[in-house]
């Protein structure tokens, strides 16, 4: 009697789950960790913005090209005044918001002022506060007047958070998500399943899939299992150990993307012994960067860098070759008065998973040049307030930023986060002239010059930039190139061949 009962039950379950799969047309399913506990907002500028939606539902004025420069998006073309203080953008015509409203310069002005509005507390305000006045010249032209010259304003507008929202929608946008992007909102359910559908009137043409479901899975392991069970089609980043799960698996395609994020070790140039440039250079020359990448991150975990915060994907990146040179390091040290080596204290913590192993690897590489490093491991909470920028030689970490922004924020004299307390008048002057330099080639030479100064005299040891591994389901078609960090979802297609 029992077998008949369970047999019938299993049959109807199979039927139920099978038909669930067929009903929807090509649907792209993405997972995210609902970090803000359901308080996610659809306003692209909000501090608690709903990550995927900003990419799928909004357009920016400009978007990133393969070579890192700013290409046209809603702005078809732009020009700058001789003194690099006034920018004019010409908008694309015939673009409509999801609500049907036609895109006009007024919307762009409204969006930028929305970004600069202090009450909104938008994280992008600090980078855009260089803008003084924004005006709509005519229906499709916007003019931006800057407080100080900036030759690369478009690079700043590349920021993911600069989506253009319709005029007057500041209060409603966080629910409606009314943008010009390839997908429009069907159902906003941050803690469950948020559903977007293709925007037929999208100016680049209809996107590759009809439907996108953004699913909240807080637990990292559960996300992995959902991917393995074919419930979701994309994992934004997996660590080296998880690579083995997907690497040579027919159902998945793994991409390794180079990024601008970097961990490093910085010396306070205002404290003995790091006030002597020779010591600083020696401490940095002793590192074998390829070996450190392999040991700390594992094969293909990152791209070696020669102490420049500007990553290879940035158009102002200064190409350089800096092999380990123990002999020169020893010579520099004895010249600086430390003939028989030097004792230094390095402070690190488990607040970032690569800090500890990076310190250990530096410790035994530096020993070859007589630099005896004593490692102090401090507790994770409280690292950024009590150890970073306090102790003479500490570990640090920066996310990817365009060249001009990172150089200003971390190395300009007197900058709030100048962790090396480095003052170099030549460097500061070069930065200012670069910002004003309208000519592309000369601007690039100036930025390369600043990186040269950093390499010669700087106190920051930046061994490598991190790579990120992401996984796509093999059902997806025309995947983004390995250079594009932020996926453009409109091009992705999906074959629903339920095998």
């Amino acid at each position, binding site marked *: 009697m029992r077998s008949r009962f369970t047999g019938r039950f299993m049959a109807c379950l199979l039927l139920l789950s099978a038909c669930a799969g067929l009903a929807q047309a090509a649907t792209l399913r993405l997972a995210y960790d609902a970090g803000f506990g359901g308080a996610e907002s659809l306003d692209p500028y909000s501090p608690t913005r709903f990550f995927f939606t900003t990419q799928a539902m909004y357009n920016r004025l400009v978007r990133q090209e393969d070579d890192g420069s700013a290409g046209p998006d809603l702005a078809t073309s732009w020009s700058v005044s001789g003194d690099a203080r006034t920018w004019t953008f010409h908008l694309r015509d015939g673009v409509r918001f999801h609500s049907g409203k036609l895109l006009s310069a007024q919307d762009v002005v409204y969006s930028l002022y929305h970004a600069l509005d202090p009450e909104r507390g938008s994280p992008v305000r600090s980078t855009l506060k260089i803008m003084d006045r924004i005006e709509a010249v005519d229906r499709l032209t916007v003019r931006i007047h800057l407080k100080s010259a900036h030759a690369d304003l478009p690079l700043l507008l590349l920021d993911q958070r600069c989506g253009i929202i319709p005029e007057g929608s500041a209060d409603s946008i966080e629910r409606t998500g009314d943008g010009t992007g390839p997908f429009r909102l069907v159902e906003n359910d941050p803690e469950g399943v948020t559903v977007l559908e293709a925007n037929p009137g999208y100016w680049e043409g209809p996107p590759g899939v009809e439907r996108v479901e953004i699913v909240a899975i807080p637990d990292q*392991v559960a996300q992995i299992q959902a991917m393995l069970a074919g419930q979701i089609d994309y994992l934004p980043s997996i660590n080296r*150990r998880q690579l083995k*799960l997907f690497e040579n698996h027919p159902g998945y395609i793994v991409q390794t993307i180079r990024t601008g994020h970097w961990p490093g070790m910085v010396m306070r140039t205002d404290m003995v012994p790091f006030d002597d440039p020779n010591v600083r250079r020696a401490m940095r020359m002793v590192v074998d960067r390829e070996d450190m990448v392999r*040991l700390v991150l594992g094969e293909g975990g990152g791209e070696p860098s020669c102490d420049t915060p500007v990553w290879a994907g940035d158009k102002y990146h200064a190409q350089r070759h800096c092999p380990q040179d123990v002999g020169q390091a020893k010579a520099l040290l004895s010249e600086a008065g430390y003939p028989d080596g030097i004792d230094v204290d390095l402070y690190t913590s488990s607040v970032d998973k690569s800090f500890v192993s990076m310190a250990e690897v530096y410790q035994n590489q530096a020993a070859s040049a007589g630099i005896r490093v004593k490692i102090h491991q401090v507790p994770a909470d409280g690292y950024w307030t009590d150890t970073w920028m306090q102790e003479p030689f500490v570990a640090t970490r920066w996310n990817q930023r365009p060249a001009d922004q990172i150089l200003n924020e971390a190395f300009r004299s007197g900058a709030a986060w100048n962790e090396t307390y480095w003052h170099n008048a030549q460097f500061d002057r070069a930065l200012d002239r670069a910002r004003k330099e309208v000519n592309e080639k000369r601007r690039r030479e100036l930025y390369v010059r600043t990186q040269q100064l950093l390499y010669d005299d700087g106190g920051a040891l930046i061994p490598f930039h991190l790579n990120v591994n992401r996984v796509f389901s093999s059902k997806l078609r025309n995947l983004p190139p390995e250079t594009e960090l932020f996926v453009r979802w409109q091009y992705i297609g999906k074959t629903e061949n339920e095998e």
Partner: protein
Amino acid sequence: MRVATQTGPVNAGAASAGPGRFRRVKPVMRTILSRPSGMAGAVLVTFHLLLVIIAPVIAPYDVTQQDADRILEAPSMAHWMGTDSLGRDVLSRTMLGGQVSILITLAASLIAAVWGGAVGVSLGLVGGRIDEVCMRLVDAFLAIPGLLFLLLIVSFAGGGVFALIPTLSFFNGISVVRIGRGAAQSVAARDFITAARVRGHHSRFIIFREMLPNLQDILLVEWAMRWSWMMLAFSSLSFLGFGASPPTPDWGLMISDSREFLTVAPWAGFWPALFLSTLIIGINLFADALGKALYVDRENRAPG
């Protein structure tokens, strides 16, 4: 019609002339081992207890020693049970995996059986208003699912031994109170207790010399059951991240970590799961056999 050969429990068949209190251990053990399930239970439990003692000595690797080059490596001559996601040897971690959980649950279940039994028996004997009120309290406490409160207390007071043992023993003790009380009342109703009272023995004599020998069997079986439930609860706690804290080797924790790499490295989760399950099965079988050998009817009682 009763078969006239002999009445009463079979185990008392042997004219055991052994001295003192433990003369019954031998026949009880023989009855347990005579049943296949009892034998299996005893073998499993002894294996794991032995493991707790000798594991630190014979474990091939240091349990916390990470090896970056050998992450999630298949079982090989070097690592019989392969390595886990941090390159640590699964065999030595599995062998030592039970240490924390077994010691904590053993201690907690003993305390629970003792305090629960003592309170239960005294409630059973005292009776009257106090008994009524206390039983209401016990019913109310049973209304709170144990694991939930473990979570609450452990999360604030930290997963350390000091928080776990009192919490576990308190909650399990409560259900022992109810069983102890029932047992005490049933024994107190027997004529030989009335005889002792009429003869004039003082209550201490009655409780310890007359009642206790009959109650200790029931409490013994209850302790075994409590221990198996606590093992389950503790491993669940570790699985949820509230039990043993990394990097101490613990089965629940190892299973939780291994979930991530199940498809690639199933051995990292399989061995701890196997050891955990065999231990719990062992305790259960042993408890069943002990129950039957001591004629304690615990078949149809809720596990809670």
